[in-house]
């Protein structure tokens, strides 16, 4: 690696944002303005812009083009989009900065789940020949993984409920509290094990080298990022493990030194159990101090928010070395791991 690149600013919509009365760009603009204000940058100062979102959430083709209005895309800017969680947009921006093509990048992502039924919408990402015709929804697939973990003795329903309760307690006090595990949605998962359906957006600014130092008092240096994928057929995989997460973490350098913080993108409680195991996280690691996706799950932005939350903890001096993880697809099919560090203080 020839250049040091850091996350220098992060913003996200409020956990309880109810965005059903706003368009995507109206929902997105406040977080874009917030990261720009934090760095003092203007749109014209940004070298590269990359976003993540999904047309299936909006129910419209090329829906991301409308959101571009919010970044000041005219006169033409250097811009790209991934039809994925914004964590993967950040990966693209990171490579762009590594290549020296830009010194700063704006990365944002957003998702409005509320116009459709996100459980049904997500079935459209499944194998269209053998799986999608059965319409197994996202909770059903996560529940199969949870039962596999319970059968393997890795967790039980009480431990899963505790994951959900801790996540919501760690989130903003504005989030509705309650440790009640709730009713079964798809057994063994109860409402408390499942992510809330919500709308939201996240934005991050990346900068290289001295630009990062100038823009942020304590930049969160990206020491490595990697992402890996597993076989798409669920029946081929060991659902109690996540070898792709482990491999991504290894390639990102996560195991070279211990981390103190881990922001894990685990929309379902059982997935946190899988990830802790795959990443060999001990009890000394603070997992999801932000509350994670169990407290707020704007689809397509929740993964970017994990990187942003980990970085913000470094900015605030609460972490020296943090791991951030993002996932996509059913039962942790694709996984991205980033390792972030602050300068010694």
């Amino acid at each position, binding site marked *: 690696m020839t250049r040091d690149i850091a996350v220098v600013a992060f913003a996200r919509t409020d956990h309880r944002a109810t965005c059903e009365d706003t*368009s995507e*760009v109206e929902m997105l603009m406040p977080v874009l303005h917030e990261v720009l204000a934090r760095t003092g940058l203007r749109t014209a100062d940004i070298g590269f812009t990359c976003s993540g979102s999904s047309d299936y959430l909006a129910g419209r083709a090329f829906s991301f083009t409308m959101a571009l209005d919010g970044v000041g895309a005219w006169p033409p800017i250097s811009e790209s989009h991934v039809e994925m969680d914004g964590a993967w947009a950040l990966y693209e921006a990171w490579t762009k900065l590594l290549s020296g093509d830009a010194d700063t990048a704006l990365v944002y992502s957003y998702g409005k789940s509320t116009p*459709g039924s996100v459980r*049904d919408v997500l079935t459209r990402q499944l194998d269209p020949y053998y*799986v999608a015709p059965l319409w*197994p929804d996202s909770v*059903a697939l996560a529940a*199969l993984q949870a039962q596999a973990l319970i059968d393997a003795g890795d967790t039980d329903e009480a431990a899963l409920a505790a994951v959900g309760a801790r996540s919501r307690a760690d989130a903003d006090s504005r989030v509705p509290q309650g440790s009640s595990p709730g009713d079964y949605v798809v057994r*063994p998962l109860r409402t408390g094990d499942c992510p809330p359906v919500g709308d939201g957006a996240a934005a991050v600014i990346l900068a290289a080298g001295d630009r990062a130092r100038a823009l942020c008092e304590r930049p969160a240096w990206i020491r490595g990022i990697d992402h890996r994928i597993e076989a798409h057929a669920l029946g081929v995989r060991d659902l109690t493990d996540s070898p792709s997460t482990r491999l991504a973490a290894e390639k990102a350098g996560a195991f070279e030194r211990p981390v103190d913080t881990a922001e894990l993108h685990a929309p379902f409680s059982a997935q946190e159990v899988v990830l802790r195991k795959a990443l060999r996280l001990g009890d000394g690691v603070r997992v999801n101090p932000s509350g994670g996706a169990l407290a707020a799950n704007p689809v397509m932005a929740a993964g970017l928010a994990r990187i942003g939350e980990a970085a913000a903890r470094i900015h605030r001096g609460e972490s020296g070395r943090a791991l951030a993880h993002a996932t996509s697809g059913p039962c942790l099919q694709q996984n991205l791991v980033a390792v972030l560090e602050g300068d010694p203080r």
Partner: protein
Amino acid sequence: MPEVLKAPLVLEFPFTRSLGPVQSAFLTGLRERVVLGVRATDGRVLVPPVEYDPVTADEIRDLVEVAPTGTVTTWAWNPAPRGGQPLTAPFAWVLVRLDGADTALLHALAAPGPDAVHTGMRVRVRWAGERTGAITDIACFEPYDGEPARAGDHSGAFDDLVTGIVAPARLDYTYSPGRAQSAYLHSLAERRTVGERCPVCRKVYVPPRGACPTCGVATAEQVEVGPRGTVTTFCIVNIKAKNLDIEVPYVYAHIALDGAGLALHGRIGGIPYDQVRMGLRVEPVWTDGARYPDHYRPTGEPDADYDTYKELL
């Protein structure tokens, strides 16, 4: 603030998909009550079969018949089946490793309740009465406490292969255009065209989308524009669109309404198509009950000077 509009939005698409040799054999087999797997490079039998080895990515084609009986490797009780799912009564989602297979198939298990389901339980295929060569030819699995069924030795060769599937999809949404476009549509209903002015560059956007794409800031100040405007550019449409009750050729134009900072689209009528020109002054024509102008027609004014609209092209 006027009410934000909402409307149902349905996305429906019958996806026609062709099958490769392995998927074709597997789905044809289901139609004939034969379950086929494929042997992977490491010797494992994968059911459902895939065309490329999940470990080595080698092409694999060695089809193997497996039994219609098997073992549940994990399950999840679904108390409230959703549209499109295999059973309408509460059921268990299951991954089933069929006898003779090394991997598991996702499907539904009919059972009286969650207490009747456990990992390791024995199940068998319940075939659909009418089979077409699709994963739904397996209606579901059902509990089974007999001996493992003996797999035949079908080679995977069929006379009448299924070569494609139609995968229907339907998703229901409630679409909302947001604050800015709702306000625009509300005003259109009163036959007024209202844009929004950017607080930074002062440009008036019609229709407004809530943000200035140049400045990247929210637009809020509402400004009524038009009703008259100028044709900035146009094209002549010679092909009739499906379900469109307009004679061809007709003219589709960019129209800069007076006071607007950019042009919107509209059809030009009331003038022969070959007489439409840049600079032509036009006004909207409303039809009874319509929520937007049907078309724009010439006002009879002299043409606008090029300099007055060249920035809006």
